[in-house]
Structures are given as C-alpha cells and as structure tokens.
C-alpha cells in the first residue's frame, strides 16, 4: 500500500513540477532580462499555468493529412513515458524510491536513449522538411551526447562501485562526488543539456531556422506532451546531477532528506534557466565537433584517470 502512495506521490509532484516550470521559467527569464514576466493572473501570475494548460487542451488537435497517422500520434507519448520511467530509479529521500533497481544508472541511460525516438519519429511522421531536418539534428545530437554522458557517469560508478543510485548516494557520505569528479560533473551537465535539447543546445527546434523543428506540425495536447516532456527532462537531469554528484538527499540533519533533494534540484533547474537566458545557440557542426573532439576525449581521460587513481589507492 505504501508503495502505491510513493508512486502516486512522485507522479503527482513531477507532473505539477513540469507544469509549474512553465511559470518558473518565464518568471526567471524575465527576471534576468529586466522584465516582469507573467504577473497578472493570480498571485505572482501563478494561474498562467492553469491558463496555458487549458489553452493546450482546447486547441484543435490536428493531424496533418500528409502525416503518418499512427506514428504521429504516439511519438509525443514516448518522450513523456521514457522520462517518467527514468524517475522510477531516482532516490528522492532515504526511503522514497519507486524501484530500488540494481542497475539504476543503466536503466536511466536506457530510458534516455529511448527518448530519442520521440524526436525522430515525430519529425519523420510529420512528413515536413523542417520537421525532418529537426529530427535528423536531434537524433545525431542525442546519440553522440549519450556516449559522453555514459562515459562521464562511469567515473561515479568506479568511485561508488555500484550502479544502484541509492548506494551511489550513500557512497557520498564523506565527500560529494562533485569534488573528485568535477570534470565528469561538467561533462554530464553539458551532455544533459544536449540530451534534453534545452537552450543553448536546442538545435532540433531552433525557432529561428527550422520553424519549430521536429514539432512544427504538432498542436494541442500532442504539442503539450513534447512541452511537458522537455520540462520533465530538465527536472530529470537536475535530479540526476543532484543524485550522482551533489549527494542526493544527504545534508545537515535539521531538514529531512527529501527537502534537501528538492532544494538542490531547484538550484540546478535554475541553472538550466540561467543557461537559457545567457547563451547563444551554437551551430550544428560546432556542436558535433565540440562533442566529439573535446568532450569525448575529456570523458575518456576522466574515466582512465579515475580508474588509475582508484586502483593505485587500493
């Protein structure tokens, strides 16, 4: 019974976080651009979330006649499903965890690699030039950045000796992994931004060149799924950064573990929004070159150095 409460609670909190991020992102972007952002409906403009959700629900749910209908419909569901599945292995608190999987970290990587399909299939099924270009960019970006993401994570695995995220958190009791694994942390952060195709790496969407990229043809709640999937992805990467590098729910005892976890996650979400506010979008080939020529060797170096140091200390 308790188990179902955890699942329900996590799902409730996550979906509300994703919706609340609509408001949070607009307010924080406005703050950094010397504006106010939404501040009319409700206290601090919070009801904009409600208004946006209603708008998405009541928009015409249009399937273009030239699209591949079945694939077009289920592509947006993949992204939300895969991201939500990833959340099952994250320990939100000492005992708050949906699935205590032995291979938690690999499960996260597997689910994030499945998330690529929503972009690829959505872009392909739209049967539209811009959508296809966006999908191609998205696929190549996400496949290549997944590689360094996995490589960077292996440093954490070497230090903690486990794929289980709960054990990884426990292994950080003495010192957070952000200190010994700083390079890995930076690589994972960059790869995480690319993986959720957030700005500045929003190359698959790139409004200024590709209309809206892979979701050009989507409207209504089907677009809303992509939208929520993106915000859930931001939350997921932030939660993973906290779990893997910043001690998860560990923290001084005056607050419960969950609160520490939420606070740290919030800091990283704000960092994502700050990145969006301050960075220009790189060109597609620059992004790939940066990934393969800089991040990939760096992540290999990080892995080898970590392994060598751990072995020599034994």
């Amino acid at each position, binding site marked *: 019974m308790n188990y179902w409460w955890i699942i329900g609670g996590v799902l409730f909190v996550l979906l509300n976080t994703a919706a609340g991020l609509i408001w949070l992102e607009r307010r924080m972007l406005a*703050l*950094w*651009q*010397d*504006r*106010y952002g939404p501040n009319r409906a409700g206290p601090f403009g919070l009801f904009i979330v409600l208004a946006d959700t209603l708008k998405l629900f009541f928009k015409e749910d249009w399937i273009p006649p030239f699209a591949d209908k079945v694939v077009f419909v289920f592509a947006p569901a993949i992204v939300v499903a895969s991201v939500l599945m990833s959340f099952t292995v994250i320990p939100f608190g000492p005992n708050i965890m949906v699935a205590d999987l032995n291979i938690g970290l690999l499960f996260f990587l597997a689910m994030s690699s499945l998330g690529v399909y929503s972009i690829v299939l959505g872009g392909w099924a739209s049967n539209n030039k811009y959508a296809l270009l966006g999908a191609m960019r998205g696929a190549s970006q996400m496949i290549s950045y997944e590689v360094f993401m996995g490589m960077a994570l292996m440093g954490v695995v070497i230090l903690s000796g486990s794929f289980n995220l709960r054990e990884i958190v426990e292994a950080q009791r003495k010192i957070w992994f952000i200190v010994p694994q700083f390079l890995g942390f930076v690589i994972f952060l960059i790869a995480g931004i690319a993986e959720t195709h957030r700005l500045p790496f929003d190359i698959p969407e790139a409004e200024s060149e590709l209309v809206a990229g892979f979701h050009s043809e989507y409207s209504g709640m089907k677009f809303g799924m992509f939208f929520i999937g993106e915000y859930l992805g931001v939350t997921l990467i932030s939660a993973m950064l906290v779990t893997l590098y910043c001690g998860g729910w560990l923290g001084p005892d005056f607050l419960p573990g969950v609160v520490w976890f939420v606070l740290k996650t919030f800091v990283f979400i704000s960092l994502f929004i*700050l*990145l969006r*506010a*301050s*960075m220009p979008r790189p060109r597609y080939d620059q992004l790939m070159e940066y990934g393969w020529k800089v991040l990939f060797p760096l992540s290999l170096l990080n892995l080898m150095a970590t392994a060598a140091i751990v072995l020599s200390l034994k």
Partner: protein
Amino acid sequence: MFSLIRSMWLVFLHAFHKRDTYQYPEEKAPLPARWRGRIVLTRDPDGGERCVGCYLCAAACPVDCISLQAAEAPDGRRYPGFFRINFSRCIFCGFCEEACPTYAIQLIPDFEMAEYDRQNLVYEKDALLINSQGKYPGYNYYKVAGMSISGKEKGEAAREEPPVNVKSLLP
C-alpha cells in the same frame, strides 16, 4: 570557456537590476510631445476650425485613409463638409500633418483607440475635431493670410498691406 561563465554571471547579476517594464494599464508610458498617435483636427484661438478643406492631407496620405469634402461658408471661408479618417488603414506616418498649410490636422500622443468593431475605427468629423489648438497655440491662419470680407478684397482695408504676390520673383 571563461567568457561563457562570465556572461552567465553577468546575466545572473541582472536579477538585481531595476526592471524596464511599464505596468501598462496602471502606469502609462511617458510619450514625447511630438509622438505620432491619434489624428485630430484643431481649432484656432478664436474657436473656429483651422481646416480649409484644401485636400492636401488626402493627397499626401500614402494609404488613402483620409477623405473629405470642402464646403464654403456664406462669408467665403472654406471648411470641410465632412472629414473622415479610416484609422484601420492609417499608418501614423504624419505626412498629413506635414502637408497641412494651416496646422489644422495634427497627430497627438494618444494610441489607446482599440475597438471591437472594425467599423468603429472610421472616425467622422465630430470625433476628429477637438476643442483645442493642439501643438500650435496662438496660430491663426487667417490672421497671417488675411481674409476678404464682403465689399473689400484682401489688403483693401485700412492699415492693411496688399497680399504678397507669390508668383512674382520681385522682392
């Protein structure tokens, strides 16, 4: 790499800057006096219409949104019989103001003229003619140009110079 972090820091510092937004309906943006907004027809200091119905504004208008018809009063003075501006077409370029020889048509700093019905954006003369001298207080066209009255042509009254012959090159 360092420049990226520096730009992130600078953007972060903007959190503590003053916001540039005017909270519009409560707080109006300050508009300069010569801001080109709603078009009005002004009156001279005596309260008479300045417009003489010369059609120059209608000719100057690039989008042809001004239409009027001149009429003549019993004292020989011209005035617009009707004057109509279609604000759904107007681009607020201010050419009509420049073309006007009598400073009658003026653009004033007011932009709050949204309507639900498009037809309501066609302003007639009673809506355009305001009870004010606009940007040129004290200017009276007829005081400068002179006016013929019944029985006397321009320049024939006592202590009045004959009108300048604009077609002559002589001083």
